[in-house]
C-alpha cells in the first residue's frame, strides 16, 4: 500500500444467510480486513479510544446492515479486570471467558474496530473441549479454562452449556490444531519522512508498556519490538523512548534478534496489533519459529536495517480521531486512523461502571506505583479530556486525568487535577518538566507526586445534635430512628427552627468570607498577569 491509498483493505468472506426484520441484514462467516482473515469464533483484539491496551474478544456474529458492518463480540477478561473476584492462582497468560447474562458479556461493535487476531487456547478439561497439544498451549497468546459469570460475578471452571445463546462447544478449541499460517507479509516501503509534520504524540499509548505490576501472572514474554521512531528525525522524542526502554524488565522471548534501537515491549496486545498493520512489517518466517505467529510482527535481522529505518511493528495507533498524523513511520497509519471509525463506546462504559475499578482504586494503585501526579493551578474549566490533551501536546506523554476540585471549599482560581501516567519515569519526567516552566493560558502550573492525605470522613456530623440523657421508650426509639432517615422543612414553632437558623446564619457568613477571599485571590493574580506581559513586551 502506498502512501496515497487511504482505504484499508477489506473484503467479505463466505456468506451465511440473510436476516433481519426487513431481510436487509446479510450475515457472513468470515471477512478479511487489512489482509488478515477473520472467521467466526476467532479471537481478536479491539481497541478503545484512550485505552492503551486492547480488549480481547471472540467473534460471535458478523453482519452488514445498511452498509454498516458489525461484529458481535463475546468478551474475555484479563485477570486484573476481575481482580476483586479472583480466587486462587492465575496461570500465565490466563484470561477468562465471559458467561451468564448481562452487561459485559458481549457487545456489538463496528467491524472496523477489530485490530488483530490472537490465539486463545482453551485448556479446560471439559469433555467437549479438544485438549490442546503442549506446543499449541505454549504458542498461544492466551489460555483460558475458567469462565466469569457477569451476572453473579463469580468465577468457575465448570463450563456452562450455553454462552450468549451459543453452544459452548463452538467457543472452545477448534477441531483442527491451529495452523500456523504465515503472517501477512506485506512490505511497505518505509518512508522515513513520513512523520515530518507530526506534532502529535510519540509512541501511541497502546503500545506503551503495560504495567507489569498489575498482572504479573499474565506476564508473557512477548517482546515485541513496538515502537519506532524514525529516530534520526526527532531528537526531542528520544528522551521519552529511552525512558520507556529503561523501564523494561521483560524477559525477551528467546529468539528474536532485535537491533538496539528497537524497544522491547512486553505488551502482547500491541503484538497482534502490530501483526495487523502490515504497513511496515517485514516479516521473517524463521526467527518467528519460537514465537507464536500472530505476534511475529517485526523481526529484523539487524544487518538489513539501519537504525532509522527499523521496521517496527506499527503501532496500531489507538483509535483516536485526533491522531490523524500518528507518530512514526508509516504513511499508512494516518490513513488507517482516518478511515477507521474508532470508538467502542459501549464497552468502556460497561467496564468501568460495572467493575467499579473506579477512579479511586486507580488512584490508589497509581500512587503505589509512583505514577500519580497532582497538578495545580489549572483553569477549573478544563475537563478531563482537556487536561489529558494538554499533557499529550506539551509533554508527548499520555495519561488519564481528572479534575478534582471540591465545589464548596476549593479556591476556584486554582484548578487541581490528578493525572495517572503509564510509567513511573513518565510521571517523574512530567513533574520535572511541568515544574520547570509550563505555562498554560497565563497560569504557571506546578505539580507534585502522590495522593493528598485526606482523612476518612468520620461517621459523625458536626451540627447534628442528639439528646443523650433521656430515657426513651421503645416506641419513641423507633420513631427516632425513622426520624434520622427522613427529612423535613423546619417549622417556625419549634426549638429546632431556632437552632437551624443559627446554622444558616453561620453559613451565610462563611459564604461571604469565601467570596471575599477568592475575589482577593483573583485580583492578586490579575496583578501578576499584567506584570508578566509587560516584562515580556519589554524583553522583546
Amino acid at each position, binding site marked *: 500500500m502506498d502512501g496515497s491509498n487511504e482505504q484499508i483493505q477489506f473484503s467479505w468472506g463466505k456468506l451465511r444467510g440473510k436476516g433481519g426484520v426487513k431481510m436487509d441484514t446479510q450475515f457472513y462467516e468470515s471477512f478479511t480486513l487489512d489482509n488478515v482473515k477473520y472467521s467466526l469464533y476467532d479471537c481478536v483484539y479491539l481497541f478503545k479510544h484512550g485505552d492503551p491496551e486492547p480488549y480481547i474478544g471472540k467473534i460471535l456474529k458478523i453482519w452488514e446492515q445498511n452498509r454498516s458492518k458489525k461484529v458481535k463480540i463475546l468478551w474475555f477478561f484479563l485477570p486484573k479486570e476481575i481482580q476483586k473476584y479472583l480466587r486462587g492462582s492465575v496461570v500465565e497468560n490466563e484470561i477468562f471467558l465471559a458467561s451468564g447474562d448481562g452487561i459485559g458479556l458481549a457487545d456489538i461493535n463496528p467491524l472496523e474496530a477489530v485490530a488483530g487476531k490472537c490465539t486463545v487456547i482453551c485448556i479446560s478439561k471439559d469433555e467437549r473441549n479438544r485438549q490442546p497439544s503442549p506446543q499449541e498451549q505454549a504458542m498461544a497468546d492466551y489460555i483460558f479454562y475458567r469462565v466469569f459469570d457477569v451476572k453473579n460475578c463469580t468465577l468457575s471452571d465448570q463450563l456452562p452449556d450455553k454462552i450468549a445463546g451459543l453452544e459452548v462447544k463452538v467457543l472452545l478449541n477448534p477441531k483442527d490444531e491451529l495452523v500456523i499460517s504465515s503472517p501477512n507479509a506485506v512490505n511497505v516501503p518505509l518512508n522515513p519522512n513520513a512523520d515530518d*509534520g507530526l506534532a*502529535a504524540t510519540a509512541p501511541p499509548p497502546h503500545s506503551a508498556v503495560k504495567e507489569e505490576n498489575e498482572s504479573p501472572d499474565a506476564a508473557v514474554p512477548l517482546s515485541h519490538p513496538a515502537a519506532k521512531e524514525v529516530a534520526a528525525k526527532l*531528537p526531542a522524542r528520544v528522551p521519552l523512548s529511552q525512558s520507556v526502554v529503561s523501564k523494561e524488565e521483560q524477559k525477551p522471548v528467546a529468539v528474536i534478534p532485535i537491533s538496539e534501537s528497537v524497544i522491547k515491549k512486553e505488551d502482547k496486545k500491541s503484538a497482534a496489533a502490530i501483526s495487523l498493520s502490515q504497513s511496515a512489517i517485514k516479516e521473517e518466517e524463521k526467527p518467528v519459529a519460537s514465537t507464536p505467529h500472530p505476534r511475529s510482527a517485526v523481526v529484523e535481522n539487524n544487518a538489513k536495517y539501519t537504525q532509522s529505518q527499523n521496521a517496527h511493528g506499527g503501532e496500531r495507533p489507538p483509535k483516536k480521531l*485526533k491522531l490523524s498524523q500518528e507518530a512514526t513511520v508509516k504513511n499508512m497509519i494516518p490513513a488507517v486512523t*482516518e478511515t477507521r471509525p474508532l470508538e467502542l463506546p459501549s464497552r468502556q462504559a460497561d467496564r468501568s461502571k460495572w467493575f467499579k475499578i473506579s477512579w479511586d482504586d486507580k488512584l490508589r494503585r497509581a500512587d503505589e506505583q509512583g505514577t500519580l501526579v497532582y497538578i495545580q493551578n489549572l483553569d477549573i474549566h*478544563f*475537563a478531563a*479530556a*482537556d487536561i489529558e490533551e*494538554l499533557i499529550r*501536546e506539551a509533554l508527548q506523554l499520555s495519561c488519564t486525568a481528572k*479534575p*478534582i*476540585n*471540591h*465545589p*464548596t*471549599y*476549593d479556591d476556584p*482560581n*486554582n484548578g487541581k487535577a490528578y493525572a495517572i501516567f503509564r510509567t513511573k519515569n513518565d510521571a517523574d519526567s512530567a513533574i*520535572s*518538566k511541568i515544574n*520547570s*516552566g*509550563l*505555562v*498554560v*493560558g497565563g497560569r*504557571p502550573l506546578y505539580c507534585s507526586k502522590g495522593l*493528598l*492525605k*485526606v*482523612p476518612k*470522613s468520620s461517621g459523625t*456530623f*458536626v*451540627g*447534628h*445534635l442528639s439528646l443523650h*440523657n*433521656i430515657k426513651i421508650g421503645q416506641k419513641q426509639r423507633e420513631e427516632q430512628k425513622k426520624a*434520622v*432517615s427522613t*427529612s*423535613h422543612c*423546619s417549622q417556625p414553632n419549634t*426549638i429546632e427552627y431556632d*437552632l437551624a437558623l443559627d446554622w444558616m446564619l*453561620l*453559613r451565610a457568613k462563611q459564604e461571604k468570607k469565601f467570596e471575599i477571599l*477568592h475575589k482577593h*485571590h483573583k485580583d492578586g*493574580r490579575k496583578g501578576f498577569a499584567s506584570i*508578566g*506581559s509587560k*516584562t*515580556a513586551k*519589554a*524583553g522583546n
Partner: protein
Amino acid sequence: MLLYTFLLKSVCILLAQNSYRLGQVSVEPYSCRDCPSMEASKENASKEYADFEEKVKRTIYIDHLSPQVTTPVIKAALAQCANVTNVEFIVNYTIPYDIPSAALVELDDEMQAKAAVELMTDFPFIIGGMPRPVRATYAKAEMFRDRPPCPDLKKYFRWIKQGDGEYEAMRKLKNLAKRQEAENMALIKNLLDEEKELAKQQQEALNGNGKKYQMLENVVSDGTIRNLAHHYGVKLDD
C-alpha cells in the same frame, strides 16, 4: 531554593530542544489532512457539550450533608418538590479536613431545580438528623468531575526557561498561587472550627433544656406536682 535552581538547570538541558515553543492547544484536532470525520467529531463534541449544559441546568448542588446521608434519603427528601433522576456524591480529594458531604443531584427539569433551590434557601431544610440544615445551589459545569470538554475552550501553553523575560514573573505568580492555596486552607480550617463551636453551644443548650424538661416530666409522673400545687394553692389543670 538551591535545590530548585539545580533542578531547573538539569531540566533546562532537557528542554534545550524545546526551548521556547509556542504551542496552541485547541480542542479541534490539528491540521486535519483530509478527514471529513474530523468535522463530524467536532460537531459531536459541541453536541455533547450542549447536552451536558442542559444537564447542568437541571442539576442542583447540595452540601452540608451528613456523611450518613445516602441516595435514597436524598431521593425521599426531595420527593415533595422534585423527582430525582441521579445522585452523585462528591468525593473529597483535596481538603485535608473532615468536611461535610456534598452531592450533585440531577432532577427532571429546570423548573424542579428552581423550586428545590428556592425551597431550601427560604426554609431550613433538614435531611437526616437535626438541626443543621443543608444548603442547595444551582450546579455549575465545573462541579462535574466527568464532564465533556468545552469545545470552545482555547488552550495555549508555553514553555518558559530561566532566561526568558517572563520567567521571574511566572515564578512569582506560582508562589502567589501556592500562598493563596494555603490561605484558602486556613480559612477552611477556621470555618470548620466555627462550626464545631456552634454545634457545641447548641448541644449544651439542648442538654440543659433536656434536663429541665426531664425534671418536669419526672415530677409530673410521680405525682409530686400535686403536692406542690396543693402547697402553693395553685390550681392544676392540664
